[in-house]
C-alpha cells in the first residue's frame, strides 16, 4: 500500500474531464500513473432505431470541435450503406469542406492552444500563455491574421455545409447544396492567403522547434516506439478524406494496409474499469498492457502518425515540408510526441493547398450534386482522418434503413493508450524519491496537449487546453502539497 | 393489495359523444365510474399534447371520442383527429406505453348505449394492463 497518492485533476476533481492519479511507493517513486476519462454518453446505443439519414445530424454531436469529421465519416458511411457513389461534384464539395475544416481546426490548435507554449514560452505565466500573449509577442497583425483565417474558413464552411458547428449538407450519394460561382471565386481569392499563412506558420515554428525548444522536443520523456496509423491515397500520400488505412510498425515498415471494411480484423479495443474510454490496440499484436515496442499492440494516430504512415504529401509545398520534417528528425518514423505539432503544420499546408486546387476546379459549382440511392441498405463502414486521428463509423440497418447497430472508433480512443504511456512515462521520469519536480505540471500538460486529445469525443476538454493541478496527498488523502501551473 | 381503479380521461366531442353521455344519463344507463369526460367542441381540437399531458398527470388510459366519419359537425375535424391519433400511437408505443392505453372511438349522439359499452370495455382493458408507471417510477435515477 502506497503512502502517497498524487491526483492531477484538470481544475477540480468534480470538473471531471480527464484526470491523472499517480501512486507512489514507500520510496516515493512512481508505481503507476493513471489517466482517467470520466465521460460517456452512449451514442452507439442511442443511434439505434434512428433512420440512417439522421446519423450525419446526430453523430457530429459527439464532438463540437470536430463535428465535420463525424459528419463526413457518417455521410460516407451512408454512401457505403446505400451502395451509392457521390457525384464527382459532390465529392469535391465534401473534400473542400473537409480541408477547410482541417485548416481552421489545426490553426486553432497551433496558435490558440499549443502555440503559446512555444511562442510565449512554457515557463511564461499562465495569463500570458494564450492567444493574447501571442499577439503581444509576434505582433497584432499576426494575431488578427490567426483570428481572421479561422473566422474566414468557418464562414465558408457555413455557406457550404449549412452550419459550421454540426454541419448538415451530407446525404447518401452526395450533398444537399450546390456551390455558387460567387462563393467559388471568393474561395479562390482567399486560398492564396491561406497558403501564405500556412507557410508563415511553418517557418515560425520550424525555427522554434529546431532552436529554442530543441531539447524539449527531442526529450526522451515524450518518446514512445509504437505503431502508427493513418489514411493514404493510392500513391500512399496523406489523405484526410478517403483512402486505405495504413499501419507502420515502430521501425517504420508497413505492417498493414487495408480497406476500412477489414478494420475488425486489425483493431480491437481494451476496457479498463477505471476509465470510461475504450482503448484501441492492434488485434493481431495483442494487448500487452501499457508498454510500447513492436510486441505491444498500442498504436498512435493523428498528424505525426499520419506522416509516419504515409510516403508523402498530396501537394507540392506540403511535400517539401514533409521532407524537411523527417530530415530534421533523422528519418521515418518519428517517435517524439512533441513532433506532433510540426506534423500538424505540414498538414495545414496540404489543407490550404487542397482548398486552392478544389476551388480552381470549375466543375465544383455544377448542379449535379446528388445520386439518389436505389439499393436496399444493410451495412456501411467508412473512415476519415479527423484532425486528431483516424475515425471509423460502422452502421448496420434493416432494409428500411433503420439503424440496428453502431460501432464508432473515435480518434482519441486510438491514442488513449499512448496518452496513458506518456503520462506514466513523464511522471516516472520526473518524480524521484518523493521529490516532485516543479516542471512536472507543465511537462505533463505539454505531453498531454501534443496529442490535441479531443476529449469532446471521449471527454469534453477543449483540445489541449488543460490547466492542471497536482495534489500530493498522504494515504489519508490529506493534501500535503499543492502545485498549480499558474 | 388494493383493487386497481383505473384513472381514465375521455376527451370527447361536444356534438356526439358528449350528448350520447347526457342521454345515457337521462336513461340511467349505469357504467364504470373510472372514465371521466373532458369536453372539446370537436375531436379535431384534440392535440396529441393533451394525451401526453394526461399520461404525465396519472392517466392509465386515454380515450378520444368523436363523430362517425362523415358526421362531423365541422365536416372533417374527426379525420384530423384520426390522422393525429395514428401517428401519436406510433410515438407512444415507441416510448414504451402499450398502444391499448390510447383509443379513439366514434360514438354518435344517438348511441347512448355505446357509451357504456366503450367505457366499460376500455376500463376492462386497462385493468388487464395495470397501472401506467412513468419512466422515473420504474427505473430509479441514479
Amino acid at each position, binding site marked *: 500500500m502506497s503512502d502517497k497518492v498524487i491526483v492531477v485533476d484538470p481544475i477540480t476533481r468534480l470538473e471531471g474531464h480527464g484526470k491523472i492519479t499517480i501512486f507512489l511507493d514507500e520510496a516515493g517513486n512512481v508505481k503507476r500513473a493513471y489517466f482517467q476519462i470520466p465521460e460517456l454518453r*452512449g451514442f452507439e446505443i442511442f443511434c439505434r*432505431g434512428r433512420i440512417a439519414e439522421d446519423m450525419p445530424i446526430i453523430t457530429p454531436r459527439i464532438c463540437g470541435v470536430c463535428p465535420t469529421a463525424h459528419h463526413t465519416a457518417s455521410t460516407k458511411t451512408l454512401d457505403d450503406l446505400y451502395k451509392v457513389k457521390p457525384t464527382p461534384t459532390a465529392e469535391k464539395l465534401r473534400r473542400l469542406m473537409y480541408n477547410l475544416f482541417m485548416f481552421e481546426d489545426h490553426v486553432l490548435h497551433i496558435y490558440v492552444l499549443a502555440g503559446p507554449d512555444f511562442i510565449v514560452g512554457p515557463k511564461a505565466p499562465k495569463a500570458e500563455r494564450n492567444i493574447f500573449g501571442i499577439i503581444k509577442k509576434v505582433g497584432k497583425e499576426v494575431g488578427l491574421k490567426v483570428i481572421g483565417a479561422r473566422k474566414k474558413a468557418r464562414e465558408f464552411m457555413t455557406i457550404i455545409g449549412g452550419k459550421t458547428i454540426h454541419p448538415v449538407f451530407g446525404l447518401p450519394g452526395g450533398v444537399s447544396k450546390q456551390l455558387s460561382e460567387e462563393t467559388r471565386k471568393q474561395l479562390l481569392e482567399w486560398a492564396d492567403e491561406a497558403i501564405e499563412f500556412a507557410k508563415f506558420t511553418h517557418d515560425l515554428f520550424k525555427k522554434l522547434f529546431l532552436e529554442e525548444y530543441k531539447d524539449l522536443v527531442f526529450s526522451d520523456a515524450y518518446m514512445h516506439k509504437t505503431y502508427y496509423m493513418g489514411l493514404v491515397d493510392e500513391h500512399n500520400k496523406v489523405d484526410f478524406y478517403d483512402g486505405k488505412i495504413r499501419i507502420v510498425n515502430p521501425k517504420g515498415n508497413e505492417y498493414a494496409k487495408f480497406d476500412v471494411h477489414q478494420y475488425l480484423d486489425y483493431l480491437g479495443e481494451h476496457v479498463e474499469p477505471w476509465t470510461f474510454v475504450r482503448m*484501441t490496440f492492434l488485434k493481431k499484436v495483442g494487448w500487452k498492457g501499457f508498454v510500447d515496442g513492436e510486441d505491444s499492440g498500442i498504436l498512435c494516430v493523428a498528424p505525426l502518425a499520419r506522416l509516419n504512415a504515409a510516403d508523402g504529401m498530396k501537394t507540392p509545398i506540403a511535400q517539401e515540408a514533409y521532407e524537411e520534417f523527417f530530415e530534421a528528425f533523422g528519418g521515418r518514423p518519428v517517435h517524439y510526441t512533441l513532433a506532433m505539432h510540426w506534423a500538424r503544420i505540414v498538414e495545414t499546408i496540404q489543407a490550404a493547398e487542397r482548398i486552392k486546387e478544389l476551388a480552381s476546379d470549375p466543375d465544383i459549382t455544377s448542379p449535379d450534386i446528388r445520386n439518389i440511392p436505389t439499393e436496399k441498405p444493410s451495412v456501411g463502414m467508412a473512415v476519415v482522418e479527423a484532425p486528431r486521428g483516424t475515425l471509423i463509423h460502422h452502421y448496420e440497418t434493416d432494409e428500411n434503413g433503420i439503424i440496428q447497430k453502431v460501432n464508432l472508433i473515435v480518434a482519441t480512443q486510438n491514442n488513449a493508450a499512448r496518452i496513458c504511456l506518456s503520462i506514466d512515462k513523464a511522471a516516472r521520469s520526473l518524480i524521484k524519491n518523493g521529490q516532485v519536480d516543479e516542471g512536472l505540471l507543465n511537462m505533463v500538460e505539454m505531453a498531454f496537449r501534443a496529442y490535441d486529445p479531443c476529449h469532446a469525443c471521449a471527454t469534453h476538454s477543449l483540445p489541449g487546453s488543460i490547466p492542471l493541478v497536482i495534489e500530493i496527498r498522504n494515504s489519508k488523502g490529506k493534501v500535503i502539497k499543492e502545485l498549480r501551473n499558474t | 393489495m388494493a383493487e386497481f381503479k383505473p384513472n381514465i380521461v375521455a376527451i370527447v366531442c361536444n356534438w356526439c359523444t358528449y350528448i350520447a353521455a347526457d342521454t345515457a344519463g337521462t336513461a340511467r344507463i349505469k357504467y364504470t365510474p373510472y372514465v371521466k369526460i373532458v369536453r372539446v367542441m370537436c375531436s379535431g381540437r384534440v392535440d*396529441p399534447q393533451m394525451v401526453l399531458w394526461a399520461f404525465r398527470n396519472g392517466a392509465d388510459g386515454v380515450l378520444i371520442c368523436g363523430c362517425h366519419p362523415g358526421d362531423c359537425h365541422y365536416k372533417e375535424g374527426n379525420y384530423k383527429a384520426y*390522422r393525429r391519433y*395514428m401517428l401519436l400511437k406510433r410515438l407512444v408505443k415507441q416510448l414504451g406505453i402499450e398502444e391499448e392505453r390510447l383509443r379513439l372511438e366514434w360514438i354518435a349522439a344517438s348511441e347512448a348505449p355505446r357509451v357504456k359499452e366503450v367505457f366499460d370495455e376500455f376500463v376492462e382493458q386497462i385493468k388487464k394492463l395495470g397501472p401506467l408507471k412513468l419512466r422515473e417510477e420504474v427505473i430509479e435515477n441514479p
Partner: protein
Amino acid sequence: MSKEKPKVAFYWCASCGGCEEAVVDLAEEVLKVIELVDIVFWPVAVDTKREDIEKMADGEIFASFINGAIRLSEQEDMVKLLRRKSKFIIAYGSCSYMGGIPALANMWNRETIFNWVYSESPTVMNPDKTTPKTKIEVKEGELELPLFYNTVRTLDQVIEVDYYVPGCPPTPQVTKNALLALLSDELPPKGSVIGALSKSVCEECPLNETKPDKVLIDSFKRLAVTKIDPEKCLLLQGIPCLGPVTRGGCGALCPNGKMPCTGCFGPLDGVLDYGGKAISFLASILDVPPEEDAVLKAIENLPDPVGLVYKYSLARSLLRGRIIKKGGGSE
C-alpha cells in the same frame, strides 16, 4: 448592478464542446463582452478550482452559463454548487435546455448502454466483462469515477433555471442577444427563452414564400432516397421539416443549407411538449382518407417518431424517455 464588473461563470456538463466553440466563434464580439464582465470560472480557458467557487458568497456570481445535460453524478453536484453561488443560472444550448442529443439515451438505461459499449461492441475484447465502476481497487490503491445515471436530465430538472438560450449550438447572434438581454436594465421575465425569436423558423426561412395557401401533402418521404427541389418548401415535398414547430432565431441555417429543420431551438412559448406538437402538425397536414391503410401508407416513412420529434428534447418531454419495464433494458 454594483460598480465592479459582474462575475460570470461558464460550465459544461454532458455536451460536445460545441457550445464553447460557439462562444469562441463570437470572436471579436466575445472580447467586447469580456470587457463588460469578469469571467471567474471557465474550464476551457480560466483556471479556477471548485474550492474557489465554494469560497464565494452565495449569489456572488452574477450569471452562470451552463451547457450540457445532466448525465453524471458530478455534473449534478457542480451545478448545485453554482446554483447557490449564482444570481442567475442560464441553461445555454439545447442539451441543458432540453437534454439535447445525448438525451436520446433515455430510450435505454445504464445497463443496456454499458453492455454494448463495454462488451457487445464488435471491436471490444473484454472476455471478463469489465465495466467502469465508481470505486475501483487497483493494485496501487483506489480510483474513482463519477456515477453514470440511468436517465439524462435537463438542467432545470436538477436546479432552478432563470433563463434559457436555445440552439445546438446557439448561434453567435443568439448568444450575443442573450448576453445583452441579461446586461440590460430591464430583465426578461424569469424562465423565458432569451436571445432567439418568438416566432418559428419559417419566419426566417426563404422557402416559406414558396408555400401555397394550404399546406397539405399526401405522404411523407425519406430524405435518404428523395431528390430535393432546392427552391421549394421541404415540407411540401414531403420532407418532415420541423421549421414550423421550432423556435426561430438561427437564421434558418438548415433550410438555407437545403436541409430540413430538425428542431434544435426547441418549442415556442405556449407549446407544452415539443414532440407532441410536432406530431400534431405533421399528421394534420396529411390529406389522405381517414382509413387505417391510407394513413399508415402516408406515415410509413416516419418509422422513428421519437428520433424525429424528440431529437433534442426527449429529456424535457412530458414522458422524459422510454418507459422501460423491469428487466426490459434492451429493445
